[in-house]
């Protein structure tokens, strides 16, 4: 059956789906995989800017579906990786321009030439989400450790299971270790307890993510970035490697260090 289709979804907007998709794409490519990333958020195109490819777009997803462009013509090659391509969303159309069947057909074509087809799902639970879900072999659900994001993730997970695409795995994005330690933020364990899905990634809050999207160079290319490393680990777990979770707990204050010392840890 060839390549694997991985859909990145969330329910709620703004939790980091597009960032996660871009970084996974880059990481998978850097691991030597042939990758295509598809922006399924028609009308709200963004994956192109996050990946720094916005000025190379000629054709888009809707052009492919409606036959104005050959598949290969619309695919934009990444600047750094020869085996990483983007299919951008149309900016001036709406989600109804593409059907779930169109997406299945497109994905099946891509499976022949690529190892991974990543689909960046739009927020919400309507047509755009259905489009992104239909061809999926696996779904990664991005959420933040925050009530509304977790609630929406739960809703999406229900829909994914109802569509027989479950169980899916979780990416917990923007975790603030300091706040978790103070008990002022849901921990990754809390999110796991509540949602009951296995976790494929825990991404710490990292200012470098903003600089990365500012410059269109995904953060996983920045060796200094913890978030970048965490995304890279997600990619390795996606290809089946067993990667331990990073220790995000390193900025200890003097009293905590003292306590640990006294506890013999």
């Amino acid at each position, binding site marked *: 059956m060839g390549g694997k289709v991985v859909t990145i979804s969330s329910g709620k907007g703004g939790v980091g789906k597009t960032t996660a998709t871009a970084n996974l794409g880059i990481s998978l490519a850097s691991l030597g995989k042939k990758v295509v990333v598809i922006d399924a958020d028609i009308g709200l195109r963004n994956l192109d800017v996050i990946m720094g490819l916005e000025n190379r777009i000629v054709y888009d997803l809707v052009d492919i579906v409606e036959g104005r462009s050959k598949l290969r013509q619309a695919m934009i090659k990444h600047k750094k990786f020869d085996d990483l391509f983007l299919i951008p969303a149309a900016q001036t159309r709406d989600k109804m321009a593409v059907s779930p069947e169109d997406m299945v057909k497109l994905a099946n074509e891509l499976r022949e030439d690529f190892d991974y087809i990543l689909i960046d799902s739009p927020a919400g639970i309507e047509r755009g989400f259905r489009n992104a879900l239909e061809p999926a072999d696996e779904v990664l659900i991005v959420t933040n450790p925050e009530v509304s994001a977790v609630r929406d993730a739960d809703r999406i997970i229900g829909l994914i299971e109802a569509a027989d695409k479950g169980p899916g795995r979780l990416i917990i994005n923007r975790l603030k270790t300091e706040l978790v330690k103070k*008990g002022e933020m849901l921990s990754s364990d809390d999110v796991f*307890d509540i949602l*009951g899905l296995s976790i494929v990634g825990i991404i710490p809050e990292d200012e470098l993510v903003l600089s990365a999207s500012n410059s269109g160079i995904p953060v996983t290319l920045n060796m200094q970035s913890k978030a970048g490393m965490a995304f890279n680990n997600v990619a390795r777990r996606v290809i089946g490697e067993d990667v331990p979770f990073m220790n995000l707990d390193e900025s200890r204050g003097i*009293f905590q260090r*003292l306590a640990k010392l006294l506890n013999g840890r």
Partner: protein
Amino acid sequence: MTNLLSRLFGRAKKGSGATAKDRLRFVLQHDRINLPPERMEEMKSEILAVIVKYLVVDKDRVEIDLEQRDRRHSKLVAEIPVAIHTPPSNSKQITDSSALADVAESNGANNGSDAQSAEDEAAKPEAPKDAVEAKADEGEDEEDKKA
């Protein structure tokens, strides 16, 4: 020792993270069965309304709750204490009403609603002494609620 240090620096108190978790659990229970809390309350009163047609129920101790092991397994668990029917003893009053009132009495002072149902029944014949006591219970109960 860690505990002491934690307490000194305010870590022992329950943070908003734990509150978030509790609140999410509650909301998701209802989301997952597609029945919002207010509708659930409505359903509970309807269920109870049916049951009290047949049984004397201690309404204050009724518990109807949703239990959820995970997303796919939810069950409604109900604990509805009902009054045991003690057959009237050989002595004077042999009416149903007195039996019910006895039950209300034997269940202790804290069941005004029981007493109320008992009283409804008991009120038909010439208001026996038991029913008056039940009424007293009820009054007490109302006071409890105000307190």
